[in-house]
């Protein structure tokens, strides 16, 4: 089986305030339906790696292949093949939940007839017309998960999805996220400190000193 996401020899060096090599030739392969957790201490470059995998940031060297090819139109890749979930939710606060969830479809000019179904799946159907700023933290993250699935992407990239939530809500979010990915056959790359969450994934990597090591 071919990997759906492949990173080869990714190097990332930050020069400010001093030269720091965050990623020193990292390689990673993610297969369809596979759930991958990347763990590591704070400042080890987990989010940087995730952003590079999600084309939000350019590596200094190395290349990222999504669905078997490197892309020049990064906007299309982000819109059609990737779904992002952030620690701080990153919803458009002045818009309603429904508008937030359907935003990727509107950007990609694709139909969003299943948006209400997605909201139902994450338990926010009743909140569809609420402004996002009025939601609780857990609700916001569930809305963000629904948004990530809106354009039916192949890969979901999640950066500390439960970092801002309490234990109870975190567990619910983990269950929802992993369950949705498994159910829909999506690949999931998740960056987390939470070892419990990491253990729930098919593969766990440890990012340390710029190198990625498979730990389970």
């Amino acid at each position: 089986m071919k990997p759906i996401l492949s990173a080869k020899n990714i190097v990332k060096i930050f020069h400010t305030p001093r030269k720091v090599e965050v990623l020193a030739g990292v390689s990673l392969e993610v297969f369809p339906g596979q759930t991958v957790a990347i763990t590591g201490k704070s400042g080890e470059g987990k989010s940087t790696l995730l952003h590079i995998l999600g084309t939000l940031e350019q590596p200094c060297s190395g290349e990222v292949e999504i669905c078997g090819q490197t892309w020049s139109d990064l906007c299309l890749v982000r819109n059609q093949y990737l779904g992002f979930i952030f620690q701080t939710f990153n919803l458009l606060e002045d818009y309603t939940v429904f508008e937030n969830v359907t935003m990727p479809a509107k950007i990609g000019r694709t139909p969003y007839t299943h948006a209400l179904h997605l909201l139902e799946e994450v338990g926010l159907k009743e909140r569809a017309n609420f402004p996002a700023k009025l939601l609780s933290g857990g609700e916001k993250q569930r809305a963000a998960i629904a948004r990530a699935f809106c354009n039916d992407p192949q890969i979901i990239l999640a950066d500390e999805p439960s970092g801002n939530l309490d234990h109870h809500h975190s567990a619910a979010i983990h269950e929802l996220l992993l369950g949705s990915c498994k159910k829909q056959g999506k690949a999931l790359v998740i960056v987390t400190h939470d070892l419990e969450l990491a253990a729930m994934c098919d593969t766990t990597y440890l990012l340390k000193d710029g190198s990625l090591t498979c730990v389970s």
Partner: protein
Amino acid sequence: MALIASMSVGVIALVVWLVVVFLSVTEGIERSWLEKLTALNAPLKITPTRAYFSSYYYLVDTISERSGYSYKSIGEKSVAPLTDPHDPEIDATPPSHWPEPSGVDPVKAAFAILQQEKGVVAQDFEISAAMLRLNLQKTQTFLTQVSYIASFADQSPYVHSLVLEGSELGGDGIFLAKSFQDHGVKVGDTGYLAYQAATPSSVQEQRIFVKVAGFYDAGVMSVGNKIVLAPSSIVHTISTASQLEHFDKTQSSGIQVWFPQAQEAGKVKARLQAAFEKAGISPYWKIATYHEYDFAKDLLQQFQSDKYLFTLIGVIILIVACCNIISLLMILVNDKKKEIGILQAMGTSSRSIALIFGGCGVAIGFASSLIGVVAAILTLHNLDSLVHALSFLQGHDAFNAAFYGKSLPNTLSHNALLFVFIATPVISLLAGVAPALKASRLRPSEILRSE
């Protein structure tokens, strides 16, 4: 943010309002001046050159029995039955230094060309001088003034805009400048025009009885107030009988030419010049548009310069006002960084982000223009009330009626509208370029990481 946006829109709208009101009023004043100028003097004049007065066809009348051995005016030449009245059997032989007859009479040829021009009305004119003496019925006094006597252009299509209300058109009376009304002259007052006529033994004063038929508006050209408009027969009688030797003969007679659009004087002039060249009569005539009249040239040029200067100042103020848009949009970009990052993560292109902010600039510019234009329309609609209020505050007329008319023109200028609706969005768009570029160059990774 809303306050800053409102202030930006307000400042631009204020400038737009000022530009539209000023340009509309100045355009109206210019139009009114031109209407009066071209009604009195025609938008185009064809005057004879020195070459005409040395031409065979001008000189030949003085040795021809059929012409009464006297010079003929342009009007007389145009209707003369013979192009060349000289009869070698009766008349003296033309002096050897006279030019040979070319077969083309410059006057008849010029009128033939003018008749072929579509929509053109032409009439010859003469200017002379005489002493006007009027018996004023109202005050039972006499008014005496040395005046220029010019042919009344009764064929002018603008004659109705020239004469004032109450004037009697169609008769053989004279028309005086409206300033005569201030001295008590009324329609129906009678008097005479006196001039010196040479007889074989002496010079005697001759008088022609005249009646005031009405008044005309001389406009802003001060020379207009010195002119008495009289039927061409009277002017011609005085011209020929008084044997008046003009300092410059080339200015004392000619052809006035009217056409529907006075602004097209340049084009008509070019066409006539080409036709005159072709007919071989161009050396005998000087064609001048109203822009070239000696008495109007400086004023019109100065007025144009003032208008251009103000338009330039308007553009500069508009640019300064539109700079507000740069500040506003820069603040907006900083304020909406997170949203920009989110949209980029969801697949929005940098081009779309730039278009959003560039579009904001244009929208602000367009909205400001709209508000400014609406305010300008309201101002123009109530211009008289504003002028009255201003006059009341000043204690005297805010705008001199001699220059600006009884009331300021209040017609919205289409040129001003065009200028505002093109210049403002374009300047706003340019003002939106820098913020749009800044927004499009934001890196989603940095924004979302810092959030």
